[in-house]
């Protein structure tokens, strides 16, 4: 092999691997990305049934119901809109009415959000940042008060 051929082989394999990587990333980004919405955004965007997404907000006070077995239902609210969520399984340690929550799943035809996982990622204020942002967007939570607007958001309207 000449010098030139050796160099070409090197460059060729580099481009090959790079092309493979770019192709995989683009392909994966198309189908495997999950959007995060608050209840209001969900209503605005008119999300159809079956679309996977993450729903974040506060667990509305007084809506948490234990069904038989390990099935539960509750409503996620940001003060303006509520979304009913159904979930089967164990809840994370920090799950509580009036606290922030992130549920991943999809709407069913009846408009109920079927969650297959409830996330327990919390920062020091026990409020997922996405939830805090969503609440700020809705004007439910101004500034960084240590005690977020759980009371107002959870209050029955």
């Amino acid at each position, binding site marked *: *092999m000449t*010098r030139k051929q*050796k*160099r070409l*082989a*090197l460059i060729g*394999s*580099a481009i090959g*691997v*790079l092309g*493979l*990587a770019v192709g*995989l*990333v683009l*392909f*994966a*980004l198309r*189908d*495997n*990305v*999950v*959007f*995060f*919405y608050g209840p209001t955004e969900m209503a605005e965007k008119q999300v159809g049934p079956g679309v996977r997404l*993450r729903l974040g907000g506060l667990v509305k006070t007084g809506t948490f119901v234990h069904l038989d*077995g*390990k099935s539960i239902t509750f409503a996620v609210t940001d003060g303006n809109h509520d979304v009913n969520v159904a979930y089967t*399984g*164990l*809840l994370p*340690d*920090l799950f509580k009415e009036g606290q922030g929550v992130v549920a991943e799943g999809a709407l069913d035809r009846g408009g109920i959000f079927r969650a297959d996982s409830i996330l*327990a*990622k*919390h*920062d*020091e204020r*026990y409020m*997922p*940042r*996405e939830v805090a*942002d969503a609440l700020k967007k809705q004007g439910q939570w101004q500034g960084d008060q240590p005690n977020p607007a759980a009371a107002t958001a959870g209050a029955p309207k």
Partner: protein
Amino acid sequence: MIVEIGHYALVLALALALMQTILPFWGARAHDAQLMGLARPLATTQFLFVALSYAALTYAHVVSDFSLANVVENSHSAKPMIYKISGVWGNHEGSMMLWALILTLCGAAMAYFSRAIPARLLADAVSVQGLLSVSFLLFILLTSNPFARLSPAPLEGADLNPILQDPGLAIHPPLLYLGYVGFSITFSFAAAALIGGRIDAAFARYIRPWTLAAWCFLTLGIAMGSYWAYYTLGWGGFWFWDPVENASLLPWLAGTALLHSAAVMEKREALKIWTIFLAILAFSMSLLGTFLVRSGVLTSVHAFASDPQRGMFILGILVLFIGGSLFLFMLRAPALSQGGLFAPVSREGALVVNNLLLTAACAAVFVGTLYPLALEAWNGGKISVGAPFFNLTFGPLFAPLIILMPLGQLLAWKRGDLLGAAQRLFFAAGCGAGGMLVFAALHGAPVVSVIGAGAAVYLIVGSFVEVFGRIFPAGLRAPQHALARARGLPLSSWGSAFAHAGLGVTLLGLAASGWGVEKIVSMKAGEAYDVGPYQLQVVEMTSQQGPNYKEATAHMTIKRNGSIIANIEPSKRFFFTRRMATSQAGIETLNFGQIYVSIAEQNADGSLDARLYWKPLVALIWLGALVMAFGGGLSLSDRRLRVGFARRAVKASSGKASAATSNAS
């Protein structure tokens, strides 16, 4: 008073770091051996001052000095002593102090153990290291002062985040930081080489021990973090493709590529520019990880507090070092001499493919980690990129490595014999195929697990084919002097064999996760539940008092075929001060597999909701990482790779250079 001394020592360390940045660099330009020689005492003293400062902060935590804001926010007088000491780095300010401590330790180590290295290169490298110290010490003093006082001092503290009150806190951060920051040494040398404008094969020898050490620590740190998440989060998962985890995987991938390209550079003087680039990349990824974790752009247990000012400061550091080094690279790299060429089928060729795949995998993880952040900054849209993305991109890029790894080891330098190497792997491939059959018969579906496990067996066996061939050159029928040959083999050969096999062990553990059993049940006392080949039974529930929490424990037995083989005690802890609950999973290791139970609160009817898992071979995931680090350690203790060897090599090759070195030292 002690606190003020600590604060003052930190300021003094900053002054020393400034001197360390300027004086040796100036000395290298002015050819002043005395100025260059200052690098060593400056770096060492600076480390001592930071250590003193760190000790003062630890003292404040140990005696619960609640006049310190940092102690009030993160400690409690009833907290156990181990968490008072390790809790120092369980918060933003303290973890930056640990970062600075390890950074200056690295600076001192590189200045002290580098007598073999040409004086000018060392002087420049220590200067760059000094600039890193300046940046991070300034960051601590200006935005994250751990010594800020409170007046009046509260009587009690807010306690440490309960999730962090775990022995893992004592082990995981120091190991991870030694890995992260260890790459700063390689970075500084790369920057110095670019400043000096000359690199040769000896350069790879200088950086190899540091890279290897950082890589070992990073491997252990990541594995420890993964195991901690596994047993503390109660979900039975060990890797979530969380941005914070990715932040540690990125430098690991870049560092692994660097290790291999440095080997090519050392042996064959090829890939020089690429090696320099990887040295910059590895530490850049460490810095990026620090930015992601410490700036508060991410939500996680690692992001202690978000303060935009801190984020901007770290971003500034990031731009300065990554941008600066890449700019230097752009200016100087074209002028560096090209290395030798090689046939595509050769050890070098295989290592190039390794590097391509590793950096491509690194890039894929990078995109998946940063794309959501970029999108949010772009149009405010929030998305999450989860496991499916990474499985689809990282998987196909990493899988070829597993097949190629044993093959590459068997190829000769310069020009290899692909067919011959493949023939020598017949046995390993046979073991892999046999493994697939055995696993398919034992466990069956899913197919991915069977294939993965087979590939893992092939990799473990294949990793040792090379050393086996050197111990038994005439095959097993002529085993004379085998023991002597095994002893005579360089430790680095054993090291790479073990490191590769370790990856195989980890892969086996990962593949086996497909055969796991998961059950969510409401357990009643006395009833038995089948989990995999075992039966679990609740004997009783008790509650007891811990130092700063109360705990509800389920006492359970594990039975197999009716006889009790072990007891486990999963529990739920409730911490008073932060009014927060944590789960302590009950884990029992049985034949490298684990029974894993995490419980929820007791229901009104006395039943107990619980997750029960049987995870076959799961322990291999972390044992594999231990084997990898062991391999790295073996390689590190190879006599030929020690820094002292480089000195003898320099002396032998050029008397003039060694004279200059010894004058300077």
